[in-house]
């Protein structure tokens, strides 16, 4: 199999009758981070959803390992994981159960010890047996991050992963991204906040035409 | 020709109410559809023009 690479070719995306962007081209290789930037409503989330295959582009194509993703949906989804605005965490289940079902839905056997270790690493050791309903927003986000880590996917697609996280959690997230990239993984992320990522190849992509002051 | 007079024609052998009730409602349905279509055409053009003016500003 060829080296993991994500590339888009002449991508165009429309929302309703409004064209968000067109002629977008980029390639992302192993070990690199793509930061998608742009103002609200400029199409950051739309781009991410195109990259996951949840929506299909107006024109152009998204390629994974040199092949269009629509032709290898299942193989691509096995190597890709998406974390959107919503966490995908069920309020009625506790963190461990959430991980178990997340694993089951990916078609994998759940390794309970590894799951608990991951949750502990993310600082959730005190609430493993509580339904996620009673957890804070940041804690639920961490449960979602644990699922992300356990999935073992090569490509992470993260939509505003830092929203609602405190300073410690942001540092933790930065560490996770660095480790993932060093291990040959790839990340596509949108964020409003500045990320501290030393020693990491960062590609920046501006969607739309309104730049955000602090990032420009 | 079947009809000796107009009144016989409208009477439809005693079934005038049903025959003309059917044809009348059919004609009304089609008239309403055509009227709505005509009105919608004008509305659409006006609306699109207005939106175009708005966006050009």
């Amino acid at each position, binding site marked *: 199999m060829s080296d993991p690479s994500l590339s888009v070719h002449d991508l165009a995306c429309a929302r309703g009758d409004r064209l968000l962007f067109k002629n977008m081209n980029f390639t992302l290789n192993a070990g690199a981070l793509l930061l998608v930037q742009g103002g609200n409503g400029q199409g950051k989330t739309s781009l991410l*959803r195109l990259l*996951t*295959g*949840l*929506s*299909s582009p107006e024109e152009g194509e998204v390629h994974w390992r040199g092949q269009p993703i629509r032709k290898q949906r*299942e*193989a691509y*989804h*096995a190597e*890709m*994981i*998406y974390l*959107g*605005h*919503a*966490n*995908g*965490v*069920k*309020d*009625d*289940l506790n963190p461990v*159960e959430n991980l178990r*079902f*997340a694993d*089951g*839905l*990916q*078609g994998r056997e759940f390794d309970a010890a590894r799951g608990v270790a991951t949750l502990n690493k993310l600082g959730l050791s005190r609430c493993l047996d509580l*339904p996620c309903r009673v957890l804070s927003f940041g804690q639920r986000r961490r449960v979602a991050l644990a699922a992300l880590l356990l999935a073992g996917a090569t490509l992470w697609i993260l939509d505003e992963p830092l929203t609602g996280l405190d300073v410690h959690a942001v540092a933790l997230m930065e560490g996770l991204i660095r480790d993932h990239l060093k291990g040959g993984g790839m990340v596509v992320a949108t964020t409003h906040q500045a990320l501290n990522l030393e020693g990491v190849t960062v590609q920046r992509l501006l969607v739309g035409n309104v730049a955000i002051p602090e990032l420009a | 020709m079947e009809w000796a007079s107009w009144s016989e024609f409208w009477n439809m052998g005693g079934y005038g109410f049903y025959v003309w009730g059917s044809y009348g409602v059919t004609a009304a349905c089609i008239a309403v559809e055509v009227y709505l279509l005509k009105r919608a055409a004008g509305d659409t053009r006006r609306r699109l023009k207005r939106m175009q003016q708005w966006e050009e500003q």
Partner: protein
Amino acid sequence: MHRFLLAVLRRDLTLAARRRGDWLIAQFFFVMVASLFPLGVGPEPEMLARIGPGVLWVAATLASLLSLSRLFADDHHDGSLEHMVLSPEPTVLLVLGKSLAHWLIYGIPLLLIAPVLGIQFNLSWEAIWVLEISLLLGTPILSLLGGVGAALTLGLRGGGVLLTLLILPLYVPALIFGAGAVDGVMAGTGAEAHLSLLGAFLVLSLMIAPWIAAAALRVSLE
């Protein structure tokens, strides 16, 4: 593949077990709708036995519709639906698993309640037995076709009412064959023909509905 299906099933069953309130509402709705009819048409036993099969079948379709609007909506709301659609398994399996779970959670209890209501409606034991078989074959159809409606109306304003409008006409054959089977046995003409047609409709729904629902789900998530 079957592991994914099992995971979807176990997940939905666990979640339903954690939220028994929703589950009880659907069952009580069934009982209440069926119990309103004698109050409306009068208590004569012959009349009740005459309308009983139809009333119970209509009540069952309405009860299943009540819960169908949430088939995908809860998972859509917390984002887990996207995760499931993005899993490496086919979306058809996901829809099939969720419809099956819906049937186990909301369809099977109807089978358990129906005999009690059948007695209220003065149905003979033979008729109740056929009613059970017809519901056993018919309620999965409600869950399968309902899955299409739930996927089409996902996230829409007033989605629940719209779902009813879209799906009730599609339920007509199930209603006719299901209630007809009980009628047939009461009229002495036998229920086999109706039940085999109901079974054929079930097989057809099983073959077609999940594909359309999966396509609809992808369209709705776009």
